[in-house]
């Protein structure tokens, strides 16, 4: 296999973005260089039709990864736009009698932001909280539904902890009541088998760059029958069935399609491999005990492990790891007023523990050797910082 591989430090931030697969990059370059593919896919002339055919192939590849028909896929600029189109588009099109949205406090900021915008527009939002493992109980969703509910929106895999919501059960509840159900699947598509029919999703958002494709392109699945009504966010030339105006980027979509095709083929072997590597990492981190695992171990997306080392300060840990390990922290930034992760605080972690937590996310390029190296680096850094702690700090900073 050929991947964009030679990362130094160890790259464990695949949940933020996965490195572009070299096979995808080569295909995108070939697409950019192909004189036959320079037309606008919306044009009726021969170069336009050639580009449209390439886009159609990509749409088919993208659709197949989530068990959808190609006609059900709308291309966007990424998962954030897909989520916004799904939530804002559904709510605004639902009519005056449907002004209620159900979502969770642990959603990605794209969903939180869209729901807060709807509150400003006069909608009511029911904000569900996760259980002790960070999962939203489908019974909670059922309880929150009202006659005026326009949409339920939940993420499949949490982007910080990897914990999975039972979206199939929520989908069943919504389908029984004839409600639209949006699933933010940015962290699960390509990592787990995701089938829109099995989930019962009305809408499903995902993107290319989390699965080895290029940044700047995503998709929104929109069920065909019955098809929900959405109000577009971007107006113009009527592209994507009038839902998302703007010329389609042929090479980006070709890359997205290729990444989906690769992910679909690799899923049966990669899913257990990455899960096993994650557990190997967790086992390796026991050398730096005490160490907490944030969020339930299962069910979860295979590649995410969120941990906290009691007594360790977040910013110091990040600097100690700098140049050795590329990871995400539980803090929005490192200033004095740093806002700690609302997801981790929702799990019951203190501000200090949430700020010092690390998300270690594995991907297709991650090797066992890298995992062992990462565990050893973390153990060394944690041991060094703990050696300098005042007595009682490990108990106090937890």
């Amino acid at each position, binding site marked *: 296999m050929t991947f964009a591989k030679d990362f130094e430090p160890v790259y464990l931030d695949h949940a933020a973005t996965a490195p572009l697969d070299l096979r995808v990059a080569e295909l995108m370059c070939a697409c950019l260089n192909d004189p036959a593919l320079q037309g606008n896919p919306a044009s009726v002339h021969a170069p336009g039709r050639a580009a449209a055919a390439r886009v159609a192939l990509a749409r088919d590849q993208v659709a197949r990864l989530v068990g959808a028909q190609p006609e059900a896929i709308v291309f966007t600029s990424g998962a954030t736009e897909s989520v916004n189109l799904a939530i804002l588009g559904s709510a605004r099109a639902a009519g005056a009698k449907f002004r209620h949205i159900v979502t969770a406090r642990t959603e990605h900021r794209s969903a939180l932001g869209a729901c807060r915008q709807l509150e400003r527009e006069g909608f009511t939002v029911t904000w569900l909280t996760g259980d002790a493992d960070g999962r939203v109980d489908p019974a909670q969703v059922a309880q929150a539904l009202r006659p005026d509910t326009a949409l339920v929106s939940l993420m499949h895999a949490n982007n910080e902890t990897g914990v999975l919501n039972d979206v199939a059960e929520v989908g069943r509840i919504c389908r029984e009541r004839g409600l639209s159900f949006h699933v933010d699947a940015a962290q699960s598509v390509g990592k787990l088998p995701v089938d829109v029919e099995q989930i019962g999703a009305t809408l499903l958002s995902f993107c290319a760059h989390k699965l080895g494709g290029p940044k700047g392109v995503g998709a929104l699945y929109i069920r065909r029958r019955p098809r929900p009504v959405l109000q577009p966010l971007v107006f113009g030339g009527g592209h994507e069935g009038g839902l998302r105006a703007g010329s389609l980027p042929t090479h980006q979509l070709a890359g997205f399609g290729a990444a989906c095709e690769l992910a679909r083929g690799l899923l049966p072997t990669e899913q257990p491999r990455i899960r096993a590597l994650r557990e190997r990492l967790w086992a390796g981190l026991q050398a730096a005990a005490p160490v907490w695992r944030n969020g339930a171990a299962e069910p979860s997306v295979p590649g995410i492990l969120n941990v906290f080392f009691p*007594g360790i*300060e977040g*910013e*110091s840990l990040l*600097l*100690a790891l700098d140049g050795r390990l590329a990871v995400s922290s539980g803090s929005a*930034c*490192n*200033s*004095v*007023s740093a806002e700690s992760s609302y997801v981790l605080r929702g799990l019951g972690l203190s501000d*200090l523990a949430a700020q010092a937590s690390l998300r270690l996310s594995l991907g297709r390029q991650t090797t066992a050797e890298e995992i062992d190296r990462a565990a050893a680096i973390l153990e060394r850094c944690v041991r*060094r910082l703990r*050696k*300098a*702690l*005042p*007595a009682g*700090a490990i108990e*106090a*900073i937890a």
Partner: protein
Amino acid sequence: MSYSQRVRELFEQLPRAGALATGRGQRVHGEAKALDRGAWIRFEARIDGGRVVECAFRAWGCPHVLAAAAQAAASVSGMLVGEELPTDAHRLAAELDSPPEKLGRLLVVEDALRAMLAQAHALQSR
């Protein structure tokens, strides 16, 4: 967050961090803890012949706090008890080129240093 070369060096090496080595002299300590401000520091020193012969620190905090504690521990090593405080938060901030928002944490470092030197002074005055 960007760090000066001095902060990076001190953070990487953490000189004088950990336990105070055994040796001649009487032990004193000073501690300041403000978790909400992001700093917890404890200085320990051995006083012999009216002089700070060795100083060590333990700290929880960001790299600026750890670097400031190391710098402060170095600055008092060798000083005579009762002499003027050799450093303070503002001086540490200037030496470490730390951002203004970290000054509050460096004041906690200064508080711990003052507490230790006050104890040393009280010991000498007995």
